[in-house]
């Protein structure tokens, strides 16, 4: 090899090594709330914290639950006892090896009311499921026993808002028991958090990745391929766009309305994936007017849903009236049944409902991250065309959420956050209104079916229950799910391996910088 070739090779290797050492910059629309998993949290917090901590189980790419820190999960024949066999050689960020004692410590901390864990009520019997006993028979086994079988136990353990019941080292808290910083087992560890500004995640060199051929949701291969990830809190959408164009930002979510513009840019690539977030039009079934099912059905028949979804999602989304997201294993042909626009049916149903032109108010907000306002505008236009008088009331998000919580609305353009298991998804909007005013659907039969779906683990039987629920929901029309919001990530062309997915949260492992 002559000196020129040697020099060229050295230069190439040097450049490749330099790019491998470059950090990735991610923009989020707001700062994280804390570094305390599942305690003081929101979606952004979960997304970042779950790079530093991991649970016994996690979601796969399609939403199914699989072992993460566990090697395997065994369920007893009565469906009440779960034995988690832990992976060997997993290290915490401080170098200590994870054992069942750490799992026990973490569990006890979560279940302590002083911790304020968001999901404590999911496991202490207040919302049905109750863990009656936990044990660590040896260093590599952790056993949890429920009072009755539950199909939702593992899914709840994997939930991102529960922080996957992350296993922490006890040095994560100070001597007085207050939170210090996450010492977890994730591929990244906390660098520096500048509140209101940025979070820096550093690669954890001692990380032991789960086995797998590639990335698979929160499980599968999870190697940190860059030395640092910087997360910036940027509230202004125009600034995010400028940052992406200039190369100052590598990854950001953008509103659907900006996708066409970003696709024209040579500096970035636009990646999309349907998420489990569900934009919907809610009806208050206790409203004197909308309590009439015929009127609700008339409204459903008055909407050209394909057109509405195309307008609201800037032609990214596809109509889905089911509470189950389209890539779920439970999304079958029965779930694809939907409302169809039918002017003659509208006329008939309005006459049967005795509708006399009374105005109906649609509440919406103008947050850029959800299609609430465009959905309301297109719905209003379609209803007016069908002879239904609709008005829009735009509220600030906190005010709308207050009205939602109290059930104080006629119609509302709302988005339900992602729930992976169908029973969890139905639980979001179904239940007795006397007890839970925020619930959109109050139907005894539906509640029974959902209850069964939480107890039965057999997939085929669950599928039957969900299919019956879907039929019932379409007939009752307490709300109209429109589509699965599309997770749109704009990514610098220098990045390799980034992919949005159903949980709508960025994953920065298995992502590298191109040489």
């Amino acid at each position: 090899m002559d000196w020129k070739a040697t020099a060229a090779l050295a230069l190439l290797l040097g450049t490749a090594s330099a790019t491998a050492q470059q950090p990735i910059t991610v923009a989020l629309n707001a700062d994280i709330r804390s570094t305390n998993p599942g305690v003081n949290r929101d979606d952004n917090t979960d997304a970042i914290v779950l790079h530093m901590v991991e649970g016994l189980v996690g979601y796969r790419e399609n939403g199914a639950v699989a072992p993460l820190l566990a090697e395997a999960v065994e369920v007893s024949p009565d469906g009440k006892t779960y034995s988690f066999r832990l992976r060997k050689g997993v290290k915490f960020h401080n170098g200590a090896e994870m054992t069942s004692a750490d799992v026990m410590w973490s569990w006890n901390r979560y279940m302590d009311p002083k911790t304020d864990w968001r999901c404590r009520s999911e496991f202490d019997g207040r919302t049905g499921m109750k863990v009656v006993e936990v044990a660590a028979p040896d260093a590599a086994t952790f056993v949890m026993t429920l009072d009755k079988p539950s199909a939702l136990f593992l899914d709840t353990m994997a939930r991102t808002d529960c922080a996957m019941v992350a296993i922490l080292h006890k040095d994560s808290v100070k001597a007085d028991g207050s939170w210090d910083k996450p010492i977890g087992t994730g591929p990244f560890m906390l660098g520096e958090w500048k509140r209101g500004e940025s979070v820096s995640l550093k690669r954890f060199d001692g990380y032991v990745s789960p086995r797998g051929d590639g990335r698979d949701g929160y499980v599968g291969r999870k190697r940190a391929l860059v030395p640092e990830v910087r997360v910036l809190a940027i509230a202004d959408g125009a600034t995010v766009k400028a940052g992406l164009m200039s190369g100052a930002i590598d990854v950001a979510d953008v509103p659907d309305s900006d996708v066409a513009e970003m696709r024209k840019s040579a500096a970035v690539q636009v990646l999309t994936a349907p998420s489990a977030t569900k934009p919907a039009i809610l009806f208050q079934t206790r409203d004197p007017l909308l309590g009439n099912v015929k009127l609700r059905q008339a409204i459903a028949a008055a909407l050209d849903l394909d057109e509405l979804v195309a307008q609201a999602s800037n032609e990214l989304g596809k109509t889905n009236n089911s509470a189950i997201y389209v890539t779920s294993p439970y999304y079958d042909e029965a779930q694809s049944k939907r409302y169809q626009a039918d002017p003659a049916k509208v006329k008939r149903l309005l006459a049967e409902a005795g509708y006399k032109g009374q105005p109906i108010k649609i509440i919406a907000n103008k947050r850029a991250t959800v299609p609430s306002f465009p959905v309301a505008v297109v719905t209003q236009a379609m209803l007016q065309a069908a002879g239904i008088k609709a008005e829009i009331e735009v509220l600030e998000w906190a005010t709308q959420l207050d009205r939602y919580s109290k059930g104080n609305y006629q119609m509302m353009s709302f988005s339900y956050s992602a729930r992976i298991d169908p029973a969890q998804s139905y639980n979001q909007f179904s239940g007795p209104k006397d007890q839970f005013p925020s619930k959109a659907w109050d139907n005894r039969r539906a509640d029974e079916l959902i209850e069964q779906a939480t107890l039965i683990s057999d997939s085929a039987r669950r599928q039957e229950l969900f299919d019956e629920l879907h039929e019932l929901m379409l007939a009752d029309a307490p709300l109209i799910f429109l589509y699965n919001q599309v997770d749109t990530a704009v990514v610098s062309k220098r990045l390799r391996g980034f992919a949005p997915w159903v949980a709508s949260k960025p994953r920065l492992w298995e992502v590298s910088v191109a040489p």
Partner: protein
Amino acid sequence: MLRFALTRIVMAIPTLLIVAVSVFVLIRLIPGDPASLMLGDLATPASIADLRARLGLDQSLFTQFGIWFSHLLKGDLGVSINSQEPILPLILSRFWVSAQIVLVAVFFASLVAVPAGVIAAWQQDSTLDLGLVGAATLLLSIPTFWLGLLLLLFFGLKLEWLPVVGYVSIGDDPWRGIIYLIMPILTLFLHEIGVILRMARASTLEVLRLDYITHARAKGLSEGAVLWRHAFKNAFGPTWTLIGLVLGNLLGGIAVVETVFTIPGLGRLLVDSIFARDYPVIQGCMLFVAFCYVLVNLVIDLCYPIFDPRVTAQ
């Protein structure tokens, strides 16, 4: 002077008290609940009630106010509902960021706009006057977020001279810190030039029409001496007051500029807290802003005798 200052500080106490009570009540009149916002769409009435109890929001308004006010008297503004951070250090750290931008921008804007305003008045109706007034009106008319975005696109994207996003504290890295502050300072500087120039011009015009200016010219004084010694000193009072008001206003409210340039300042903290219904932070911020307003105007008043000997600090 000291007595005047003390009297003014004592007089500020009722103002701050009124601010404290009105902010406390008004923020709670706005619909929306911090507990609902924190729990999201899966919240149940029980979980909301639980969280409200833990945050102390289930108690009567009088009790809540009593607790907050008793802590306030000890200099404790409480902790943020959202981040659990102590509020006073949070406000001070954010204020320091905003203050750097505001003070530098207003200082340079005054340095440019005051002489420009005096010259425009001196050359009233000339091409120069029309040009300066036109430019001032234009700068005043452009909203700061739009101006900021234009600068961002030009200096950040087109020329690639300045960073588009991010912030580095001057304390951490002085040179990079300054680089990150250039565009927000420039945005405010350009906007405030318009405000101050118009006031400087108007007040100088008024003075230039007075008899003693005619008398000074009749004495044979040079135009420079007439302008500096007789016109400027007498005309500067209203402009100085305006600078004080601008400063007080900006110190508590450059949220738009901070949002565009991703600066973690006081304005953004306040706006974020309003959206999150973080009551203690909103109360703390508003009280702090009111305090700044009072303090800046006190300093402005105390400086009057320096410019106008007819005014005494009594």
